[in-house]
């Protein structure tokens, strides 16, 4: 409670203790946190874990933390994903954030930091945060300063049907883009739909362009393009050209332009029912495939997005994102303690085992049981570079324009140059 003297809430609470009769204070929703007269600190924890089993597991963890720290009360505020996003935008505008809040890192967190609303955790978390999975910490680090602690991490890669690959005579998954195009041709030759794609939702299409951009232009170029609001880098145009090469092979399922992701006739179901050989999707793909389709069981495999010959990026650079927690500027020490508790091996092991998250503490890897998840984890562990999901890294208008333009490229109505021009235009206007 080192900052207590500085915070307005602390002052008000002290006034109350001094007998100024401000008992009504605890009734004011927004101001109910902070230290009270008997020395207990109430901290607000805003998260988006509204679904089971995560909801129950997290509530249990909160109880455990309170038992270990009798002077601290946790007040959990849970909001559904989209509601949370808009609520946080409003809170950012008003200049008051909750003590502990969910963050995806990237552009939004950056905005909050620039507004001076987020606590710099670099020194206060150093002793224990150094041991966390390096790639998982990336979204929350700006100018070498740490502003958030991850609890989950994931990445996009190719999920493939081993049986269909065997049928087409592909013995090992491709590691280069030309090898990938060859594999697509081999699958086509056997009358197998190579790729399932949800064209109606656009974001699954964006993954292809984003990965190709990382492989050709490199992660640094994507960052620079966003900073300069200029996406005309030749490498980014090339990404579109490589994608066009793929589209020309007509690798997608019939009617993919109208397909959703998780509906019974969508991308995940097409893949899960064995009607397509591959999909480019995040670590959650096996669950959704089994949920909306039959699921592939042991026939499902994972391989990283291939490298592009002559490109600046490597096959070991990953495109993904996760979840983390950040603290408001001036949050009490108890909030930092909680972050430490939440990133401990014991907690992470529980999260890995019960809530289907990937470990961010190396010791929690023993909680993994599924070979595919282990493959994803190995890729994350060996990652040499990291690019956050573009819609989280960029402002909403730019992120949507990327989705929209790439979708138009795949539908054949925009050229690779027009894609970069449209994104540049959106970035300049946003």
């Amino acid at each position, binding site marked *: 409670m080192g900052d207590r003297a500085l915070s307005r809430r602390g002052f008000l609470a002290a006034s109350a203790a001094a007998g100024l009769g401000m008992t009504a204070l605890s009734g004011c929703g927004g101001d109910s946190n902070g230290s009270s007269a008997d020395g207990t600190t109430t901290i607000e924890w805003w998260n988006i874990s509204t679904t089971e089993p995560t909801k129950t597991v997290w509530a249990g963890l909160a109880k455990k933390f309170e038992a270990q720290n009798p002077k601290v009360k946790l007040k959990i505020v849970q909001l559904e994903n989209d509601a949370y996003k808009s609520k946080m*935008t*409003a809170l950012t*505008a008003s200049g008051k954030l909750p003590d502990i809040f969910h963050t995806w890192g990237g552009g939004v967190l950056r905005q909050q930091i620039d507004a001076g609303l987020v606590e710099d955790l670099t020194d206060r978390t150093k002793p224990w945060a150094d041991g966390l999975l390096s790639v998982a910490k990336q979204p929350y680090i700006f100018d070498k300063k740490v502003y958030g602690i991850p609890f989950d991490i994931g990445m996009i890669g190719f999920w493939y049907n081993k049986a269909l690959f065997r049928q087409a005579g592909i013995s090992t998954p491709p590691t280069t883009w030309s090898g990938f195009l060859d594999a697509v041709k081999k699958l086509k030759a056997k009358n197998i739909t190579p790729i399932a794609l949800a*064209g*109606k*939702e*656009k974001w699954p299409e964006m993954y292809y362009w984003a990965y190709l951009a990382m492989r050709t232009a490199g992660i640094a170029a994507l960052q620079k393009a966003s900073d300069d609001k200029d996406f005309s880098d030749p490498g980014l145009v090339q990404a579109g050209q490589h994608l066009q090469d793929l589209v020309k092979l007509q690798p997608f399922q*019939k*009617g*993919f*332009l*109208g*397909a959703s992701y998780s*509906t*019974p*006739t969508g991308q995940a179901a097409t893949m899960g029912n064995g009607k397509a050989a591959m999909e480019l999707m995040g670590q959650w793909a096996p669950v959704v495939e089994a949920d909306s389709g039959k699921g592939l069981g042991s026939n499902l495999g994972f391989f990283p997005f291939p490298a592009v010959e002559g490109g600046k990026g490597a096959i070991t650079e990953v495109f993904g994102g996760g979840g983390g927690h950040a603290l408001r500027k001036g949050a009490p020490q108890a909030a930092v303690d909680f972050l430490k508790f939440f990133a401990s091996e014991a907690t992470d092991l529980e999260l890995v085992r019960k809530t289907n998250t990937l470990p961010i503490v190396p010791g929690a890897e023993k909680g993994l049981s599924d070979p595919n998840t282990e493959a994803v984890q190995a890729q994350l562990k060996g990652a040499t570079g990291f690019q956050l999901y573009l819609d989280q890294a960029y402002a*909403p*208008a730019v992120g*949507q*324009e990327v989705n929209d333009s790439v*979708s*138009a490229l795949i*539908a*054949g*109505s925009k050229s690779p140059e027009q894609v970069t021009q449209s994104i540049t235009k959106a970035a300049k*206007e*946003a």
Partner: protein
Amino acid sequence: MTSTFLPDERTGTGLAPTSPVARPGRGRARRRLVNWLTAVGFQVPALVLFIGLVLLPMLFALYAAFFRWGGFGMPSDYIGTDNFTQLFKDDVFLGDLWRCLLLVGLSLVLQLPFALAMAVALNQRLRGRAVYRMLFFAPYVLSEAITGVLFSMVFAPDDGLADHVLGAVGLGGIGGEWFADPSYVMATLFLVMTWKYFGFHMMLYLAGLQSIPAELTEAALIDGAGPWQRFRNVTLPLLAPTLRISVFLSVIGSIQLFDLVWVITQGGPDHHSETMAVTMFQYGFKRYQVGYASAISVVMFGICLVFALAYQRFVLRRDLEGATTNMRGDGA
């Protein structure tokens, strides 16, 4: 009417100081005032709600349309009419306007005549006609969202009911990608719209047909008029007021079309089924370019307003005479 129960100065039971001399003139003025206040009192709650929830937001949208505004805090980045000039240079929005016209045209040429034909058919003596009427009206009762989900399954390429049925009757070749094909998405969408809305227009026409006196048709029959002549010269002119209202509702509905499109295609593939309302939603709630989205809503409002006023002025004039255009009723 209420004045008999209201205490006034003549009875001396009111709270107002009693006047020694009864002055009927002043009493009437006071009664009128009380009546007026009563009327206002009853209207205030509705007026407050209407102003607060309808009028002010509309005016605010008009205001926001002149700003570059992300939707949080107050708009501050004034950019004049940039949003509007941008809008009319945007291929997607110009496409929206074209698709709107297309839907209006198709509705007037295909959907409403079809509804009229069904109404005339079901106005005959027919075994089980109540059942038919109910069946045809049922789709209108379904919500747009449910209709959307239903038809995205029906028209799922290969696996959907539509392709199965076409395949079963040996027409598998004409089944295609339906909503997933940029060239056919509007046709498929119009098919669903017709399925959903023709029953509503059919009901309107049926009600109109019921109100046509049978004597007129009989008289025409005696005069030797054939079925087409009876329809053309008796039924159609007398049904005209209903037709005019139905056209009005259909056009306004086409301009504002959103739910069905959003659920089925989200405007895709590649914007080929996008409507003005969908574009507005994309910009307002996906891209958080609320100023630009407001400009779209203002244009939509303008189109609806101009159409509604012109339609009332030139088409509905006769139907509305004595109702809204002339309160004295001497224009009839």
